[in-house]
């Protein structure tokens, strides 16, 4: 446990001592801030129009009109940014040779992988935590429902955890950070859009594709419900890829 926390500490310090974490977080906040602004402005416009016409279209509330689209957009931004955060985790150690040093220390692969994973997850949590400012502003000025906001953020955290686990895995496969990043991006995008094929494959496979899709499982979270099956999906995905990472580290040594 203390070894996991030693690696966790080292990785976290790396993120925040180098500019990596700051650049990723700043860019994330600028883009998500712009999304919040435009979504909110649009909602504002709709409210004004409905006030003038006296006709309120469905979904004209803060959750459906602002929070859900915002969280949906954030999930796309993290899809783009998290691979950049995770690509160096193991690939860099392999490139620089410090992986050899780490492998000859009495540290289990599980401790090493979980330390690295948790560090990246922490950076992501900080990143996500900063965006709480937007719903915070809503809460300050109006009275939206709070439950969907809370569950939405839990969903995003779980989704991000599975992206980070994927990133850790792909980073363990290669000593090339670009390859690790691109592979992570490809894999997470694939999990995101796989549900789009559902209408064309017949009812049986449609259900399967939808179940695999990352977005499908986010629905319930953004509606204010935590479905066990949906939470399990993200947790399973996370542990599955972490397990693959541990296996991949073992095999790296056996193969060479």
């Amino acid at each position: 446990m203390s070894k996991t926390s030693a690696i966790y500490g080292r990785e976290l310090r790396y993120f925040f001592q180098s500019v990596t974490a700051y650049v990723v977080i700043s860019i994330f906040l600028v883009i998500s801030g712009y999304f919040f602004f435009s979504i909110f402005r649009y909602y504002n416009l709709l409210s004004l129009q409905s006030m003038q016409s006296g006709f309120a279209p469905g979904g004209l509330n803060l959750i459906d009109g602002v929070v859900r689209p915002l969280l949906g957009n954030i999930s796309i931004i993290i899809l783009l940014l998290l691979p950049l955060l995770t690509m160096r985790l193991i690939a860099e150690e392999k490139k620089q040779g410090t992986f050899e040093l780490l492998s000859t220390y009495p540290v289990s692969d599980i401790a090493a992988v979980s330390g690295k994973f948790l560090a990246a997850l922490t950076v992501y949590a900080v990143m996500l935590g900063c965006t709480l400012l937007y719903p915070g502003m809503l809460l300050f000025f109006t009275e939206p429902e709070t439950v969907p906001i809370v569950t939405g953020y839990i969903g995003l955290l779980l989704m991000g955890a599975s992206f980070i686990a994927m990133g850790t895995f792909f980073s363990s496969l290669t000593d090339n950070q670009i390859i690790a990043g691109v592979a992570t991006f490809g894999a997470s995008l694939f999990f995101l859009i796989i549900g789009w094929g559902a209408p064309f494959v017949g009812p049986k496979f449609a259900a399967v594709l939808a179940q695999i899709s990352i977005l499908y499982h986010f629905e319930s979270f953004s509606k204010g419900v935590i479905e066990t099956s949906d939470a399990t999906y993200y947790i399973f995905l996370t542990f599955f890829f972490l397990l693959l990472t541990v296996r991949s580290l073992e095999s790296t040594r056996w193969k060479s």
Partner: protein
Amino acid sequence: MIRVLELSKNYGITRAVDNLAFTVERGEVLGFLGPNGAGKTTTMKMLTCYLPPSSGTAEIFGFDILKDSMEVRRRIGYLPENNPLYTDMDVSSFLELAAQLKGVKKDALKNSIDGVVERCGLGEVVRRKIGNLSKGFQQRVGIAQAIVNDPELLILDEPTIGLDPRQIIDIRSLIRDLGKDRTVILSSHILPEVSQVCDRIIIINNGRLVAVDSPDNLRDRLKRSSMTRVRIAGSGDIAVAERVISAIEGARVIRTGETGGDGSALVTVESSSDSDIRSALARKLIEADIPLLEIYSEELSLEDIFIRLVTEEGEA
């Protein structure tokens, strides 16, 4: 005690280490010697549990490198060949990380870090970033991380490579100092280094063991044949000289040529060490009317021994 049992490693079809077997006693400083690509690094990587052997195994203080990898890793300190370090960290936090990862207890942490900092002479650079240090200091940091948990076995892969002569002397004396209270295995292709620091030398070539002995014994072993060099004026007489020398009992011409700037030629003669052939050589050469300039016998240096062991192996 370290016992290496029939250790082999294949990289694809290349056999990097071939049935290597030797033992190292506790407290011994063992030199691992061989030309580049002989399998030194591969062997060390197997002993440190980084690479699994293709066949065979090794026991380190009774623990098998395959079955009890964690126990082995707890007891070793390792400096890999190109000394990989977390260059973005400063020296003290890196050593702290290494100590934590090697399982140094929390209350002993500060003491052991201060200890290695002092022992490796890192006092003036503890707060500096490793990436900005000179190669000599980086090498010390590499050794410091290896000994931070006070390991019973220290494995150093080419610890002095790429250093300037002054740094080499420093690192060597550090290794000698470290060897006083623990077992050390160090690899090198520099002979004087090994003969200065080590109690025993293992010479390997093409992944196979060529010789194991103390530096002095190795020298003795090959001293049985001694070398005599004969310098004659003018290279025109070489052929005649060779014929004359070959006629002497126990003498064998192993090299001719090497004409000096003055046009003289050098003939290297090998003979068994129990008979001094110098007087016979002088008499015969003068009888044959060859303009003899000088005769001197030469002791085999470790370099010669090394080259000969390695080439003999190649010819065999």
